[in-house]
């Protein structure tokens, strides 16, 4: 008994990275058994019904296809954890992409892509901060605050070029999503994975991350316990929007273009991924591990239905049914406990 205590204390002292590995990895996926089983069954079914699903090439394709959704879903997880919602991520994605194009493109400001990216991320974070302030200071319900931001950001995105798209970026930029380093990992997919790990560690092992769970569980309990609820809420909306902006840049790299109409409806896909991953819309329950599974379920489902030649219209129906099923099982399981 004494021995095991000592070793665990030693382990605790050697840093977060090690604590996050090994046995602790299970903590990252705690409460996500249901979605995980769903994902495994889905993969099994597709492996049996198609020749192409279980190929390295196709798996890499799936990862490429979910980068935009995956990066946005990380931010949405934080927002939903504190009991909020962000409907503006699709519009912010478009706005950030348009800002980047406008700043970077030779016909407009011609300041180069790196400056464009910085400008885009700043504008996106500012949108999120405004949403956050509308929630914390003006006391608007998050649904309304971000609904307003959804409309404003979409309008601004259209105003920048009067609705036209910007096509053609430098090769090094588009290569970020095309060239697979070490034979398998594009920069954009790598970025998504690193972000997921960083935020998973943040939520599990940082005091601020744990505070977000407390806020979602009961904002008043958190406030009375001395947690700065308002400022953390502002930060969470800012970071969610920042990640949506980043997703806009990833999308630009994938498409070699930016357009003000991109990202329409992405907020719903993103919320769906987080909810399928076991998060509760009333806050306090959810994890990056669960969200990753939710994102993969949506990605694999789309990919698999394509391989099976199912029409995109039917795909929408199937995804709707999966959302309902996932949340229904979860609710049922919780009630039974």
């Amino acid at each position, binding site marked *: 008994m004494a021995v095991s205590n000592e070793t665990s204390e030693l382990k*605790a002292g050697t840093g977060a990275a090690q604590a996050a590995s090994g046995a602790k990895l299970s903590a990252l996926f705690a409460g996500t058994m249901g979605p995980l089983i769903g994902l495994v069954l889905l993969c099994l079914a597709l492996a049996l019904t198609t020749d192409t699903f279980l190929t390295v090439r196709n798996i890499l394709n799936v990862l490429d296809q979910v980068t935009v959704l995956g990066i946005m879903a990380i931010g949405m997880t934080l927002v939903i954890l504190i009991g909020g919602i962000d409907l503006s991520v699709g519009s912010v994605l478009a706005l950030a992409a348009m800002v980047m194009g406008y700043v970077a493109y030779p016909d407009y400001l011609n300041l180069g892509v790196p400056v464009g990216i910085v400008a885009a991320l700043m504008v996106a974070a500012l949108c999120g901060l405004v949403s956050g302030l509308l929630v914390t200071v003006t006391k608007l319900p998050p649904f309304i605050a971000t609904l307003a931001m959804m409309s404003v950001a979409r309008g601004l995105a259209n105003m920048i070029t009067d609705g036209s798209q910007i096509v053609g970026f430098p090769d090094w930029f588009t290569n970020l999503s095309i060239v697979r380093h070490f034979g398998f990992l594009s920069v954009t997919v790598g970025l998504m994975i690193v972000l997921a790990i960083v935020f998973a560690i943040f939520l599990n*092992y940082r005091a601020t991350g*744990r505070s977000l*769970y407390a806020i979602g*569980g*009961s904002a008043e*309990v958190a406030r*009375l316990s001395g947690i*700065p609820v308002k400022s953390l809420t502002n930060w969470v909306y800012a970071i969610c929007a920042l990640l949506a902006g980043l997703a806009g840049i990833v999308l630009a790299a994938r498409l070699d273009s930016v357009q003000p109409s991109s990202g329409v409806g992405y907020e719903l896909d993103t919320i769906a991924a987080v909810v399928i991953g076991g998060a509760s819309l009333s806050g*306090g329950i959810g994890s990056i591990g669960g969200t990753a599974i939710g994102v993969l379920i949506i990605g694999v489902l789309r990919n698999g239905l394509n391989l099976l030649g199912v029409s995109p219209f039917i795909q929408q129906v199937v995804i709707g049914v999966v959302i309902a099923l996932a949340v229904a099982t979860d609710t049922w399981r919780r009630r039974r406990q």
Partner: protein
Amino acid sequence: MSAEPRQSESPHNGLFVNGLCKSYGPVQVLADASFEVRPGEVVALLGENGAGKSTVSNIIAGSIKPDAGTIIWRGKPYSPANPAAAIEAGVGMIHQELKLLPDLSVAENVYVGRLPMRSGRIDRATMNAKASAQLKRLGLDVSPERKVRTLRVAAQQQVEIAKALTLNAELLILDEPTAALGGEETELLFKQIRKLKAEGMSFIYISHRLDEIAQIADRVVVMRDGRIVARHERADIPVRTVVEQMVGRSVERMFPKLSPPGEKTLLEVENLSSPERSFNNVSFSVKSGEILGIAGLIGAGRTELVRAIAGADPISSGVVRVADQPVHLSGPAAAIRAGVVLVPEDRKEQGVVLEQTIGENLAIGNFDHVAPKGWVFPKAVQRFAETGISRLGVKGRPNQAVSKLSGGNQQKVIIAKWVSRPPKVFILDEPTRGIDVGARAAIYDVIADLARSGMAVVVVSSDLEEVLGLSHRVLVLSRGRQRGILDRDESSNVAVMELATS
């Protein structure tokens, strides 16, 4: 005792409850409960929280099914499947939390679910006229078209009673009906009860306020731990007798012996006022090792006062000094840093995150201690939780969800959260609300220990016995004004109530 033979000879047309039992899992909340309610009488159901009063009432009102036992109502076996069936049979219940739709009119609330129709449309004229007639019967002069939200709590309660009357209720269960009422409003309610009683209606009256029972009840049934422990044929029994029956032992022994306070003043409050005027110019000080009780009626501003001192609500003027240092009360975080902690009034909404574990609940508010560099390790949380659990004798494990604990243990978790800092000023608002009697004594011991360890302790409670038994001095508030501070030897039920009602 004389009731027994009479019952069998000429059964009256009222309610007979026979041997009701109810268990949740291994916990028996109701054991062999039997009593009767005759037509036109008020039976008071007394008991501490968790004694089984609500369970037995909810069974009679059809919202809980008993495991065993029978009920006879108006000469027939009665086992309502749901509240609607109970109402159909003439049994209504007015819950402590009123169940009205605030944005609908008074008449709509009275007739909700059975709105009178004429040719496919709501017949508002008839509805308003009928509702108005019932309100008049209760002596209530309110337009039936007024929105319920705009009514005072007392008037809203009467809307509920009016609703029950239009449903032809003949037995009405009132659960803590005066909890939110003032003196005059209580008088009016009693007048209405007497009037309806004269018309032959029966009442089961649940209350904690023993002084009311003598005024309104005809007979008294006392419950404890799910059992009926006493039946009194008259209501004017000495309060002490009833309390001892409710508690199951003599009352004096419940409170711990207090140690004399120290010399150093830890908390000083000077001319504190709230922006909403819920309290005005309050000044007091508390020494190290001293327990200051704050007494007053509901709405006197007690909770508002202590919340402001703990930084939870803003103040408009005044100064709070902790150990001679003025505290800038910008929020709970600032107060906690200054050494002022609060155990809030509403445990479940403000005190604990129910779905989270004991460990997580203890870590909230202590991240500076549990995670000095911002890294939270499960082992550190566990160790911290184990210390808190053993220090306060919480019955639970660090990774157990707080929702699975009893009220008393939840309260201990909240106290444990703050104890280790250690704070200079420990404020507890209604520390034993909703906690069983046995567990209360444990909480009292904990509070006395806090003072003994050198903290300044402030206790707010609606339970007068509790304030008197637990405090070195008692501050009395009435309508936001400080009416006086009584020393332990001069404080008594009467002295405090005189000030509280002034």
